């Protein structure tokens, strides 16, 4: 439920609407074609590497400049898009046209004779609409009642209309994602942060910074959901939250205790800190509001924003869900796998992933007392787990120095893997699907090679060496920034193309005011999803519970003593002149029965034939040019 696709961008939003969480290789074309002009997003960094000579130029002027090559590339792309757009059929809102048709016809003959050059609603490309459609078309297998058909038709109409509207509203997503390109096939991983910071505008360059905090040990970090605020915690008790863009400190305290993890709750006003003994909750002034004693020896924290659940993993091996809106512990599950110190959430379905020392990753939801899925990922213990924003891929790294990417859609099989010299201690996915891995004091970032392709671990997109060993990694939402906490402080790294360029102003607005935040809070609380609804497939809720349906029917049959919907068995007619003898009756009955049976068999046979044909079609390799098989081949061994 959590990150179910949100194609909406609200009409009243003036700035931009949030986009459906796309995988980054999908449908970039559409976006690009919407605004071909080279608008640089305020929060996305567009960088191309330049030679050193350019470095002497003043900073402000550099941003607008771009190497010709890339521009040419872009323009080509745009042309392609335009072409493809021309070829596409265009959908329009049927319903909207209907009532206005008469008027339109009349309007065409205006007094002045002038005609609307673009009559009717704006056309939308079919592909764009398809992106927002939620279900495949319903295929009618047998004749339906009129009423049913009506309802189905209404539903499909509604669906089409909403998807068309959503596609139309995509126009409002005006920002483009950032990118980084090397000159003449230059490896982008050789580009250092200083180069990037030089090339981008001042505001973006200011997002690259280091905090030198060598006193209080390795730091962990957490960005708020809007991407505006940052919480840091050093192991030796240093806790601080601040608006990291303006660098305005909100609070800074030392809790005088070992601190393991920190996490913002639903907004930046509250944050939870996993301290040595208990879980503490502070407000934005650093005042301790709660000390949750039922959660002790917490190692990792996760917050599920749509359910208002704070998930905690403890040293004692318990996974505890704390509902922060009512302050109740929803579930406390014993993982039975020793110390838990690897945890992440799947933003798509709010499932918690735990990594264990026996190389498995287990998936949890609060309603079930055992892991929903247990995947054997590594031959050593699991060091870190990350799940991408679409909920399809999970990256894991283990003590066997492997980094693997798993498919989470049912099969849980590894898609790619790579051995790294030291193994990755920390992993993080960005909103647009970039994967960051921290190995020792080096951070590698991987991305897909080319559009539409899958994340490849062959070559890093960027690398960066930190002053100390990595202790926490997180991409900042809606920014092209990767935050890395390490043993000597915190660094913010520019990663062009990491963040989602368009945000939903009603959902997570980085620029929201105090009042807006309050309103959002109320709304979010009203729309809070019950914890029981967390499941592997959040779409299950839209399906009928077949098991209880069958159970109910069974009970009804038991109650009535007969099946009210059952078809009456065949009863042979009574005939005269001795033709209704018992033998004859039986014969007639068997005749009918056999007929039915034969029909069934015939149907199944047909189905099988079809399937086989399909298989053959799939399997038949192109005609081999080799010699014909000889008759003696069958004796070969």
């Amino acid at each position, binding site marked *: 439920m959590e990150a179910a696709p949100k194609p909406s961008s609200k009409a009243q939003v003036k700035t931009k609407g949030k986009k459906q969480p796309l995988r980054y290789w999908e449908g970039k074309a559409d976006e690009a074609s919407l605004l071909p002009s080279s608008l640089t997003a305020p929060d996305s960094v567009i960088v191309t590497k330049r030679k050193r000579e350019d470095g002497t130029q003043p900073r402000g002027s550099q941003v607008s400049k771009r190497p010709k090559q890339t521009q040419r590339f872009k323009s080509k792309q745009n042309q392609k898009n335009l072409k493809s757009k021309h070829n596409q059929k265009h959908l329009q809102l049927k319903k909207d046209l209907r009532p206005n048709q008469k008027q339109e016809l009349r309007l065409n003959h205006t007094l002045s004779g002038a005609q609307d050059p673009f009559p009717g609603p704006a056309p939308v490309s079919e592909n764009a609409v398809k992106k927002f459609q939620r279900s495949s078309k319903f295929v009618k297998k047998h004749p339906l009642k009129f009423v049913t058909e009506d309802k189905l038709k209404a539903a499909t109409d509604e*669906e089409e209309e909403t998807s068309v509207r959503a596609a139309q509203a995509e126009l409002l997503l005006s920002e483009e994602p950032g990118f980084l390109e090397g000159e003449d096939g230059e490896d982008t991983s050789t580009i250092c942060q200083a180069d990037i910071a030089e090339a981008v505008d001042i505001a973006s360059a200011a997002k690259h910074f280091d905090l030198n905090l060598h006193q209080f040990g390795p730091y962990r970090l957490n960005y708020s959901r809007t991407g505006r605020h940052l919480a840091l915690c050093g192991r030796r008790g240093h806790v601080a939250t601040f608006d990291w863009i303006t660098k305005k400190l909100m609070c800074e305290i030392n809790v005088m205790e070992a601190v393991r993890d920190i996490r913002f709750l639903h907004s930046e006003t509250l944050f939870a800190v996993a301290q040595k003994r208990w879980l503490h909750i502070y407000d934005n002034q650093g005042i301790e509001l709660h000390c949750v004693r039922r959660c002790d020896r917490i190692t990792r924290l996760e917050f599920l924003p749509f359910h208002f659940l704070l998930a905690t993993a403890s040293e004692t091996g318990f996974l505890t869900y704390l509902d922060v809106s009512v302050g109740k512990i929803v579930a406390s599950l014993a993982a039975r796998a020793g110390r838990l110190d690897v945890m992440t959430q799947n933003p798509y379905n709010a499932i918690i992933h735990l990594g264990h020392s026996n190389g498995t990753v287990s998936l949890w939801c609060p309603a079930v007392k055992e892991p929903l899925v247990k995947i054997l990922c590594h031959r050593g213990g699991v060091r870190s787990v990350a799940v991408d924003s679409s909920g399809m891929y999970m990256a894991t790294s283990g*003590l066997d120095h492997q980094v693997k990417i798993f498919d989470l859609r049912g099969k849980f099989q590894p898609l790619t893997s790579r051995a790294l010299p030291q193994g990755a201690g920390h992993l993080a996915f960005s909103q647009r699907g970039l994967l960051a891995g921290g190995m020792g004091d080096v951070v590698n970032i991987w991305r897909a090679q080319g559009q539409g392709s899958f994340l490849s671990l062959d070559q890093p997109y960027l690398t960066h060496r930190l002053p100390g060993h990595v202790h926490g990694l997180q991409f900042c939402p809606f920014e092209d920034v990767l935050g890395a906490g390490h043993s000597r402080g915190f660094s913010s790294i520019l990663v062009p193309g990491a963040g989602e360029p368009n945000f939903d102003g009603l959902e997570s607005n980085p620029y929201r005011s105090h009042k807006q935040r309050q309103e959002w809070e109320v709304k979010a609380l009203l729309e809070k999803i019950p914890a029981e609804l967390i499941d592997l497939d959040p779409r299950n809720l839209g399906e009928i519970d077949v098991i209880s349906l069958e159970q109910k029917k069974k009970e009804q049959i038991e109650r009535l003593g007969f099946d009210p919907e059952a078809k009456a068995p065949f009863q042979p007619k009574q005939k005269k002149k001795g033709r209704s003898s018992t033998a004859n009756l039986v014969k007639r009955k068997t005749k009918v029965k056999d007929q039915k049976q034969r029909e069934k068999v015939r149907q199944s046979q047909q189905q099988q034939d079809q399937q086989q044909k399909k298989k053959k079609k799939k399997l038949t390799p192109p005609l081999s040019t080799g010699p014909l098989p000889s008759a003696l081949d069958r004796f070969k061994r």
Partner: protein
Amino acid sequence: MGEYQLLTIMRKVPENSSLRVLSHEEEVMDLLTDCQLSTSEDENDNNDAYDGKVDGIDDKDGNNEGDNNNESKHQKLLNVICGLGGKKRLTLTERSEANPQVSEFGVSTEGTREKLELTELLAPIKISSSLGTVKKQLKNVKNKNTVELPLSKEKNEQSLREAAYNKISQDMNKWDPIVMKNRRAAQLVFPLEQEQVLDVPIEEVLEGWKVSTPLENKIFSLLHKNKRPVTSAFLTSEEKASLKAMSLEEAKQRRAELQKARALQSYFEAKARREKKVKSKRFHKMLKKKKTKEVLKQFEQLHKISPTVALEKLKKFENARIQERMTLKHQNSGKWAKSKAIMAKYDLGTRKAIQEQLIKNWELTQKLKVPSDSEHNEDDDEEDAGLVPAIVNEVQLSIDGPNPWMQKQHLNDTKNSPTQKKPAANEVAESEEEEATAEGKLLLQEAEERVFWKKVEQESQKQKHTTTMTTAPTKMEKDEEVLVQLRDLSKQLNQKVKKKSRNGIHPVSPPSATHSKPSIQREEQALLNDRPARTLEEDLEVLDTEVGQEQELLKPVMERQHWTHSNQKSPQKMNEVPITGLHTIISMKAHIANSFLSIPTFVEQEDCDEDKTQKQLIKEAFAGDDVITDFQREKREAEKASEPKDIDLSLPGWGQWGGPGLVINARKRRRFLIKAPKASPRKDKYLPNVVITEKRNVHAAAHQVNVLPFPFTHLNEFEQTIKTPVGTTWNTQRAFQKLTAPQVVTKLGHIIEPIKENDVEFSPSHFDLPNL
């Protein structure tokens, strides 16, 4: 009134002459029966009864009798009474007993003083007429069927009700479509009749509009100044004038003309098409000749009418001639001609063809004789008279002469005779000329042919002697030769290639690509097929290495997986992917698990730069916890736990000896064992590295729909209708508003009245949904 008097008089009639009286009475009765009386009773017996009867009659028919009748009857009656004489009044004895049947024995003669004689009784009764009516009535009564009993009240009411119901239900049927429409409508807006938005063209609206504001005043003054139309018409005066230029009749006429022209055109077109399709060469030749003749004729005519134009045309012909001379089109230098020339020596047909061509050339290049003006004009004048209708000539003549119409008649006289003669002579002359020209042609042809043949011979000789001639045609030939050679070579090559391919040696370039692909595919398939067959350890290890080594190989696999994943949603479906040899996997597992450590892994052999040592280190570090076997054990346990268990109801000690060490009889145990139904296959059946719980999330299920709502009969139908989310989080604002629009909208302060029958067809709310 009259009757009444009569009756009172009748009472006084003496009884002695009863029969007479009777006869008289009968007369009276006859009178009375005039006004249609039916009395079936015997009047003999009693007068009272009679009285009553007559009273009834009186009541019935009093009004019917006319006054004249009355008077005459009255006279009669008076006469009868007078004839009775003054005899004593008879007293009638009345029979008092009630007897329905009058018996002959019971007839009393008392008071009559006369003996009743049998003869009297037997005498025929006069009054048969009245009895006839009775008979008739009796007959009628007999013939008539008996009327059935009237229905009971309840039944009657029921039938009435039924009829009424049927009628009303039929009446109500006409509402059905409206009801359906309303039920189906996404939204109903009440009151149903809304004042319709005026859908009037703007011109009509503007007509009733008047200038009110100063701005409008200004605008209109401007318009007036520029003489633009202001109010009604939207046309300027010029436009109007142009509209008026042609009257309706004219327009119609013109239209008819045009129509006719078009029709004719189409006919001609059709004809032309037909002719064009004809394949006969002869036909076309004839056609051509005809055409040329026509053209010539026209030309001649033209020559007569306007010589200057004709001259020009001639020049055009001349032009064509010049062009023909310029080109080598119909001469013997063309490719075709050359090829034919070689054959011509031996073949008569080709020779003829060449001749024909040459003739054509000759014809085309022939200079047209432009006759000297003086000669021709004379001829013309003479000829014209015959060929061309007289009027045309006259018209031409009229230029210099007097009015032709005046001259016409006597001209006719003079010209008739020569016109008849001349054409024949002309024809003869023409034919002669043609013959002459033909002869000339032939001569010319022969001459030219000779020249041609000579040329050909020379050329052939030249070719024989000097092959290295540099003339253009030889060059061409050379080129052609080269081309031919090349072609031959290429053919040979192709053949060789084919042979090779047949022999099994694959040609290098194009087929290699086609071949390599399938091989890759095969490998992939092998990989795919192998995967399940491999045990887990192998999987993990080999995958490690493979991923490193054969990224390219795996990529398509991954892509395919990607596809399959995206295509198949539920894990159950994915399990259907055919994977074979589960038993072999299970059986192999233990074996390989045991030999796990001994087998050198690919990772170690192959893995990158540094780490033989480190790998080994790690392995040593984790030697104790064999992760994979642990996992397998776990999985097996989970499988076992999820399996439905049989219930054993056998009790030890029942029917046999019980105690420690005694085993229950196998047969008995079998008898008391309730076998559990087979469980559906586990979701992770074919996923060796995954354990998926079979437990249902009961808490989530509580939120799910667990009934199939009314109109739906299948699950997926209903699921289809609830798939689109409604909230603002998932929809644009407008879509959200539309999705959540109320089903019924009522306008405040409006009275909602029931639909009237008249409005049924026009209620707009059924058709138009509100526009959000």
